[in-house]
């Protein structure tokens, strides 16, 4: 009696390319125009990579971080000073998060300038906007967890803005802060949201967002014209481009984290609030500048939400027509100009605040 010959070699092979996870995330063939690096600049991928790096380094920081009024700042000092490679881990966490915010914003800009939000990708566009909000909240909650003399301001101003919402403001404040004023419960809640709530929403949202890309027919591209031959690249090519991007971004982040460690001021003292220079995290500087001119309800809620609503309405305002899949297509100048103007206003307001 003899056993049938196995078609597989007897050696156990732990890794096969065609069975790997990342390999199979990609469709076998990708339209060449979608896969072109200068079309996407890999911004979505960079955002995912930095989200993963932030999560992994955040996991390591959780072994030492103490979400209490007395322990928060001290544990960061401990991480920076005593824990082996602790300062690097914290720096990589910080810089990955900053690059993630930048990548998400640029990714959104790319979608708008190439009309990637048009159907059938309109739902994924809304999911992407949700991820923008989650990214900002994620970063903001991490910023205040430093609990030093600078970030205490962001926490104070940010949470006080909640109270400005008519009707639900106070309830929302209690929900987020957990008390009538900032105290031990606030830092614990921000921590829980940061490491659990927002991480779950963020990573889950990213997964769904990527899956939706496949479902919606891949990355946006020009509407095919009749008679023109359609060109495709194999997933190996895309995979290689992604690998190169990962190497460059990771190398850059390691370099940045080594040479420019994130700041950590003296510990925050709630009873000293009011005597230091106030500076919001960089991505909220525009709102801080607005707060100098308009009432908090407008600066903190109505104007930012109006901007977000404009972005959400884009797929309805600009549904079809020529110009999809091309950067700065002149046929679609209106949405691009509107977004460009919005971005310019945000940048100018931020610079004004930063240079004060």
């Amino acid at each position, binding site marked *: 009696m003899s056993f049938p010959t196995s078609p597989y070699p007897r050696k156990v092979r732990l890794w096969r390319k065609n069975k790997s996870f990342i390999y199979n995330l990609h469709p076998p063939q990708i339209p060449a125009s979608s896969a072109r690096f200068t079309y996407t600049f890999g911004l979505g991928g960079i955002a995912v990579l930095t989200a993963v790096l932030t999560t992994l380094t955040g996991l390591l920081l959780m072994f030492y971080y103490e979400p209490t009024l007395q322990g928060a700042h001290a544990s960061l000092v401990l991480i920076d*000073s*005593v824990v082996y490679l602790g300062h690097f881990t914290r720096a990589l966490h910080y810089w990955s998060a900053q690059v993630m915010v930048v990548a998400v914003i640029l990714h959104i800009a790319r979608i708008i300038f190439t009309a990637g939000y048009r159907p059938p990708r309109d739902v994924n566009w809304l999911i992407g906007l949700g991820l923008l909000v989650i990214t900002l909240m994620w970063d903001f909650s991490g910023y205040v967890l430093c609990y030093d003399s600078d970030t205490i301001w962001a926490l104070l101003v940010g949470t006080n803005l909640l109270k400005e919402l008519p009707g639900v403001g106070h309830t929302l404040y209690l929900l987020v802060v957990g008390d009538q004023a900032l105290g031990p419960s606030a830092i614990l809640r921000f921590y829980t949201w940061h490491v659990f709530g927002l991480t779950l929403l963020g990573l889950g949202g990213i997964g769904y967002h990527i899956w939706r890309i496949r479902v919606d027919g891949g990355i946006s591209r020009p509407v095919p014209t009749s008679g023109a031959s359609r060109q495709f690249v194999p997933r190996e090519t895309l995979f290689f481009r992604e690998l190169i991007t990962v190497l460059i971004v990771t190398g850059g982040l390691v370099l940045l984290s080594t040479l420019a460690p994130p700041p950590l001021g003296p510990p925050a003292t709630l009873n000293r609030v009011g005597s230091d220079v106030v500076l919001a995290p960089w991505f909220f500087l525009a709102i801080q500048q607005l707060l100098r001119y308009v009432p908090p309800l407008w600066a903190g809620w109505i104007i930012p939400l109006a901007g977000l609503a404009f972005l959400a309405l884009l797929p309805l305002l600009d549904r079809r027509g020529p110009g999809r899949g091309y950067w700065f297509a002149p046929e679609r100048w209106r949405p691009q100009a509107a977004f460009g103007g919005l971005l310019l206003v945000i940048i100018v307001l931020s610079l004004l605040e930063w240079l004060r």
Partner: protein
Amino acid sequence: MITTSKQAYLFFSTSLLLLTALTILFWGQLAEDWKTYQQAYLFQTNQPGQPAVQQIIPRLGPDGQPTPDASPELCLTCHMGLAEISPSHPVESFGCVICHRGTGLALDKEQAHAGLLPNPSDLAVAAESCGQDNCHGGYADPTRNHVDQVTRSLQATYAGGIAMIRYTFGVQKDLAASFGVVGGVDPNPLSDTVSSLTAYQPQQDALPMETQFAQNCLTGGCHLTTPPIEAPYFYRSTGCAACHVLYNNDGLYTGADPTIARDEPGHAATHQFTTAIPYTQCNHCHNRGNYSLRTMTFTPRPDLPPAGPPLSEMMPTEGRRLVEYYQPIGQFTLCEWELDCADCHTQAEVMGDGHFWPDQKTMQYIQCRTCHGTLTEPPTTVEITDAEDPALRLARLNDHYSLGMGDVVISTARGEKMGSVQLRGEQLVQFSQVDGQEYVVPPVMGSDCQQQPDEQESRYCHQCHAYQR
């Protein structure tokens, strides 16, 4: 997957970028500042060993245990070799942060030194460091609240000097002291002290002289609150450390802390407190030069460095201390230049007694007769009978003399005990507080002295006993 040479080039160059970044990271890890400092210390002291984080958990709780909120301090990781500030402040009990603040857990210089008090004894912050409760402040016994007392002392207020200047220029009608470099209120003044002083700040319409006086004479150089003149022979600290932390004349550090530059003037000789204060320390402020009332400026002594020739070239071998001590303006007895200033000028006289004294003449009360007596009266002596006597505390802090219960010591006109002048058998013996040398104190009673009973000030004694200077 890598199919072309261009792809291979891209892959290897980007991999190289990542590898370079990682190499820089681990290289930086090897060359952290604290490791460099420790290696320098270990090399200098010829000690074997590898750099390691040095941790202290202050033990200020009951039975020498850490208090529940005690936090580890890593300061000595960089400041390895820094001398312990004093035996009464053991570093393993006190740590560093309780006095110096800063972030004890940090090893990064900037982070560690955030909020640091380089000199916790500076009078601007001393109340929160040296003077905190149960240290040198907050006691019911005022003699233990040294920071309060020093802040009211003439060394800090310069009340008499300010009054004299204002009077000289007709700004005030008499010599009554009402201003000080530091102001404050004394709720229980004595008959010859003032109840309050106002912090001296010339008004906008003040005479130019007043403004000049405040700018030139009160903002730098002397007085406990102001930084010193940055020149050899003037280097010193401020606050308590102005007297209790010794400086070399060249202002150079001679300790073993690798973080302190040894060629950078302006540092204390070592990180150590002492009550054995030599005359050289007092001379960083006193007897260093003269003041011009016309220009409101300070002129350093021409016979001493830095204005004069180096000390080694002009100092006589004999009587050097007399020449170095004083300016050539008067007469001084042997004990005035053989002993050190701290041997005669008592704690209350120098560090204050909690009252605002109007001027030096009113406050200073040590006279020749305090130790030598008069023709008709021996010096006043008193036996130490109280275990809590401040004289015992002072003696414990000084290695050069000892004092115990039952010892008989000099008592000053105001009842302050001079523990270093003790009755040994039939003789009064002065122990130098700086080197422990013993000096027999000759009594006036029974001697050939012909002083008149009403002529007891030192100037009368100088007529016979002085050396010309």
